[in-house]
């Protein structure tokens, strides 16, 4: 094996990172003194501080099973593996939602693999999703990829809780990691489209997206600033086992902390959440602490100890068994 980092908790250089206290001030000024920890049903989650996780409360559904036309370097469709497979389900999207609701599900993430244009085929499920939202009262989140006008119009009819998508500000990342014939401008156009249809955008920025290097993250943040979203999510590249992606070095704690700080200052009134994907083990603990220091509003699957850490900062922690920003 080369020096590639596997999924395992990576080695990292311990550093003492000081986050500018102004970040805490920004959070206090614009938000209540609380932080929300999110735990969707994508994985089973139990720590010394939280034992009440439910994998059925918020469920992810893939409309394409484990299939994806893009074969992105950092994913290779592995992100779809833990989701319920609509293609293998004997029934429609509405039937599946109905069955889940009977079992106590309160929200769903409708996801799936993309076509070669980077779009998840959601359009044919719009009527079912409208029904599921109206009749079952489910919170509906979507992963549309890069939705076109028609998809945005449909999603607006669904009354979705949020539209989650990666925003990429670097051409090399789009071409080499995503294998997409798109440009950063296409991503900005999608943000504009979501804004125009009054859809609750939840853009994600992946730190270290280009094989662990930070290239387009700042440009992505600039794009997002133009269309302040419902929530912004920051995640950190986590090279999944079996993808073959060779990552020799992840962003340093310093780079990550600086970006948290910049994000907080750039979007003072937008809830910012540290999302699911990030390195595990000791590095995760440090990253999570920095997220709280930087005045972020939430964390997904927090490291053990973060509830106490939040309390020490005078912030009231609460848990929601769902995706970032969902509120029952």
């Amino acid at each position: 094996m080369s020096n590639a980092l596997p999924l395992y908790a990576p080695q990292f250089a311990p550093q003492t990172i000081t986050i500018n206290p102004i970040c805490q001030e920004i959070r206090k000024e614009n938000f209540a003194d609380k932080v929300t920890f999110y735990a969707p049903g994508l994985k089973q989650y139990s720590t010394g501080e939280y034992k009440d996780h439910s994998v059925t409360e918020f469920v992810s559904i893939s409309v394409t099973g484990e299939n994806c036309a893009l074969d992105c370097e950092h994913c290779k469709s592995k992100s779809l593996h833990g989701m319920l497979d609509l293609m293998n389900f004997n029934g429609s999207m509405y039937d599946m939602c109905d069955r889940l609701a009977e079992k106590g599900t309160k929200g769903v993430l409708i996801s799936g693999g993309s076509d070669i244009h980077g779009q998840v085929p959601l359009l044919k499920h719009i009527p079912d999703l409208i029904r599921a939202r109206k009749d079952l009262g489910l919170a509906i989140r979507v992963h549309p990829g890069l939705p076109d006008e028609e998809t945005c119009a449909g999603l607006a009819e669904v009354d979705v809780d949020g539209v989650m998508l990666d925003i990429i500000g670097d051409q090399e990342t789009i071409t080499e990691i995503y294998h997409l014939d798109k440009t950063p401008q296409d991503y900005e156009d999608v943000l504009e489209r979501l804004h125009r249809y009054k859809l609750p955008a939840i853009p994600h920025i992946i730190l270290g997206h280009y094989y662990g290097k930070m290239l387009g993250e700042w440009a992505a943040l600039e794009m997002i600033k133009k269309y302040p979203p419902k929530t912004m999510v920051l995640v950190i590249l986590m090279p999944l086992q079996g993808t073959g992606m060779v990552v020799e070095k992840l962003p340093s704690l310093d780079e990550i902390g600086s970006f948290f700080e910049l994000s907080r200052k750039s979007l003072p009134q937008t809830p910012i959440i540290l999302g699911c994907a990030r390195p595990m083990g000791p590095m995760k603990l440090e990253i999570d602490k920095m997220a709280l220091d930087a005045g972020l509003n939430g964390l997904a699957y927090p490291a053990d100890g973060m509830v106490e850490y939040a309390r020490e900062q005078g912030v009231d922690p609460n848990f929601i068994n769902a995706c970032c920003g969902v509120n029952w």
Partner: protein
Amino acid sequence: MAKKEYTFPTDLFYDGKNHMWLKKDGDNHILVGIDAIGLDTLGDLAYITLKPKGTEVKKGESIGTLEAAKMTGDIFAPVSGKIISINNACVENPGIVNEDQYNKGWLVSIEATEWENENNQLISGENLQPWIEAEIHRMETQGFDA
């Protein structure tokens, strides 16, 4: 979609609740690891912590924690006793468990103190195949029954 196949060596005991395998030697030393269905449920392991050598544990108590692609949680002792060794190689590189779960991927060795009372709650011998089939069925339908 192809049906998944799982390997369950027949010379081992299995903790049906937590999907751990156990291998016993003549001195009541029990080697403990994660079985095939358990590993499939977890996804790729990323990070393992284990209680230190010398720790007394009761069956069902936590002997460590793990972080994996599909789970963050405790590792539970399948028998009561004292931890007499831990597999540091797996702590340093959990990928060993993913690659060779029944050999190099063992986690701890426990000197069992209640083996005679506790082993009848484990699965082995002629009970193994029906249990595997029932568990596979449960896995396949778990999306709606979890």
